[in-house]
């Protein structure tokens, strides 16, 4: 956003302090983890990295550790549960680009997930009469296919108000499912068996990526999540990300400030779609079977619930939300039947009482703003949160 350039936007010390105090007070009242983000941001860069590395290592070790109480066993296999959680987390990261960054409500995200799954299935499954390619090649292909349809759907609808996008995507999600039922090439309920998997055998000659063993799939998906996160983080801090946030906060204002809103909305939609396609391909590989029963609108709403629950616009929150949405029905099997009811009600309750979700996005925005602020002032620290003035001037900060 070009507002960072203006010299008048840097407040003087006293007013900065005043704003900082007010913000600190507001945050303490609202947050569930008061001061956590401040503490995190106050840590030196090296400590942050160290901490992150530990978290990542623990994440990689999860299938082996199988921690008691947290584990989903005996009800569900823990490794497979982890693989599913990681796929949901990836979906949430992708949908977060659309809903969280750009503020576009995509209610048919499952359609892109389905496109990815079918791409993987139709090019690898022996049930498919078409050309067969190695599984790993279907991952970029699934991304491309989903992205193509994202652009096809996005171009006509993204010129309009956001509400239309919600209903059009809702319809699109349902149409993909119906088409999967009526087009014979997509095999309806019969579906595709033995979807491919990445190559490789272990020392005993066994295939590594088996459908019954979730661990390698989990590691693969986790690695992809980390790559996508790094990319998404870079996008978030780039010109594109700032444009998205400007569009989310006030589209008209963004347009007037010279942001080509339509272009960036299509970008957000296409990038989100491609991540959806990627996660669909991973899901198809892990489960090994694709038919038309898994891609209903209810699943799509679960995806939205994942993003909203975790914290709209916060990528760490999205991972948490995605993992939770998959984890809760697997861990608490008694309530698994009511998951749509629970997550539907959760959407309402969160939106009313805690619109930011578990990990509100404001913190990351603040961190960025403060960084810029400190750079401009040539100091490093001591004025928490006032950087928000640089990024967004006061109004509507908690959206």
């Amino acid at each position, binding site marked *: 956003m070009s507002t960072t350039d203006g010299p008048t936007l840097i407040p003087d010390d006293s007013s900065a302090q005043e704003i900082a105090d007010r913000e600190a007070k507001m945050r303490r009242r609202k947050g569930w983890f008061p001061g956590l983000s401040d503490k995190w941001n106050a840590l030196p860069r090296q400590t942050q990295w160290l901490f992150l590395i530990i978290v990542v290592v623990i994440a990689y070790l999860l299938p082996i550790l199988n921690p008691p109480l947290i584990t989903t066993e005996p009800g569900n296999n823990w490794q497979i549960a982890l693989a599913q959680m990681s796929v949901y987390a990836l979906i949430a990261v992708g949908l977060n680009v659309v809903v969280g960054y750009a503020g576009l409500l995509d209610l048919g995200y499952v359609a892109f997930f389905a496109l990815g799954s079918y791409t993987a299935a139709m090019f690898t499954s022996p049930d498919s009469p078409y050309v067969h390619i190695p599984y790993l090649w279907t991952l970029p292909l699934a991304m491309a296919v989903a992205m193509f349809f994202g652009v096809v759907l996005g171009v006509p609808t993204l010129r309009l108000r*956001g509400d239309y996008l*919600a209903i059009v995507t809702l319809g699109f999600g349902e149409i993909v499912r*119906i088409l999967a039922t*009526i087009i014979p090439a997509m095999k309806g309920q019969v579906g595709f068996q033995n979807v491919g998997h990445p190559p490789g055998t272990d020392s005993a000659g066994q295939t590594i990526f088996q459908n019954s063993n979730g661990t390698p799939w989990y590691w693969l998906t986790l690695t992809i999540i980390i790559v996508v996160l790094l990319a998404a983080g870079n996008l978030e801090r780039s010109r594109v990300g700032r444009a998205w946030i400007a569009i989310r906060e006030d589209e008209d204002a963004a347009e007037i400030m010279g942001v080509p809103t339509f272009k960036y909305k299509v970008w957000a939609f296409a990038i989100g779609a491609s991540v959806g396609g990627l996660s669909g391909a991973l899901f198809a590989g892990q489960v090994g079977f694709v038919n038309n029963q898994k891609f209903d609108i209810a699943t799509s709403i679960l995806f*939205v619930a994942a993003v909203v629950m975790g914290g709209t616009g916060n990528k760490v929150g999205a991972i948490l939300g995605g993992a939770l949405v998959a984890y809760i029905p697997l861990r608490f099997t008694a309530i698994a039947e009511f998951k749509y*009811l629970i997550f539907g*009600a959760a959407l*309402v309750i969160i939106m*009313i009482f805690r*619109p930011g979700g578990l990990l509100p996005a404001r913190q990351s925005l603040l961190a960025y703003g403060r960084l810029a602020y400190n750079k401009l002032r040539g100091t490093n620290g001591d004025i928490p949160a006032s950087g928000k003035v640089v990024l967004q001037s006061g109004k509507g900060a908690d959206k």
Partner: protein
Amino acid sequence: MISEVIPTLLHSVPVDDTWITFDVNSFTQNFWSSTFDGLTFGAIYALVALGYTLVYGVLNLINFAHSEVFITGCYGVFFTLSALNFGPSAPRLAFWAIVGNLVLALIVAIIASALMAVIVERVAYKPLRQRKAPRLAFLITAIGVSFAIQYTIYWWRGPSPEAALTMFRPLPIFDVFGTIIDSQQVVIVVAAIILMIATDQFIRRSKTGRGIRAVAQDPDTATLMGVNKERIIVTTFIIGGILAGAAALFYVMKIPSGVQYNGGFILGVKAFAAAVLGGIGNVRGALLGGLLIGLIGNYGQVLLGSSQWTDVVAFVVLVLVLIVRPEGVLGSSLGKSKA
């Protein structure tokens, strides 16, 4: 079971194109029957579309839960008629007895739907309005409450549709171009049109209607002029609920086994498409849009050869309308319509 099917399907390249036809012959043969059927469905869509259009006009919000308001009405009809010993085959009752029973079912459905509409408004939307939440929050809440209701019904009634209820045996009335129009189609279309004219007149002539138009035009100014905005909003939801309840009766009349927990969902999307097609916020546009969506869907179904295509066709029409003429056929909004 699947493992038995798989070998036969292996290497069977799907070349025959029976899944999609372009059967002009069947289309011309069935033209009139699909027209009349399409108009019947269109009348039902139009009644539901009115609920979307009114709420959108007043609050600028797609009330995703309106399909659940509608399905609540369907359950009202189902329970009333079940209690009155209606079953899969039409009951042998005198004409006025049937009319009386149906009116009772209609009243129950209207009350159920209107009540549900008010509950949705109070629980889901009002708190957000008070907190001045952004638009996205309203949309997310709308879809959330829609799902919460849908799966509450699922929890209560299970996944399968309720037993079929036939209200009366359709009697042939007219013969137009060799196609018979039956009493059911006449009842639905006539009743729906009467209801819509009544709504239109209510919004154009009554004091409350003027209030609705005022709030749709400019909520703040309307409040300054002494309009009770909150009451107008609730009234709007109630009107939408009443029309959805009426639509529910006709829907169960047309599709006796259509009462199901998610039965309102696709109908809701189509009704919304109808509202957009006619011009969202425009009461007369909802009627036109509903009838058009009903017709287009039915023609598409006959032409393309499967009933599943109706939904696809309706959706494609929605996208095309949004590309070509996003303000809809009739355009103007609720606030701009003249008194």
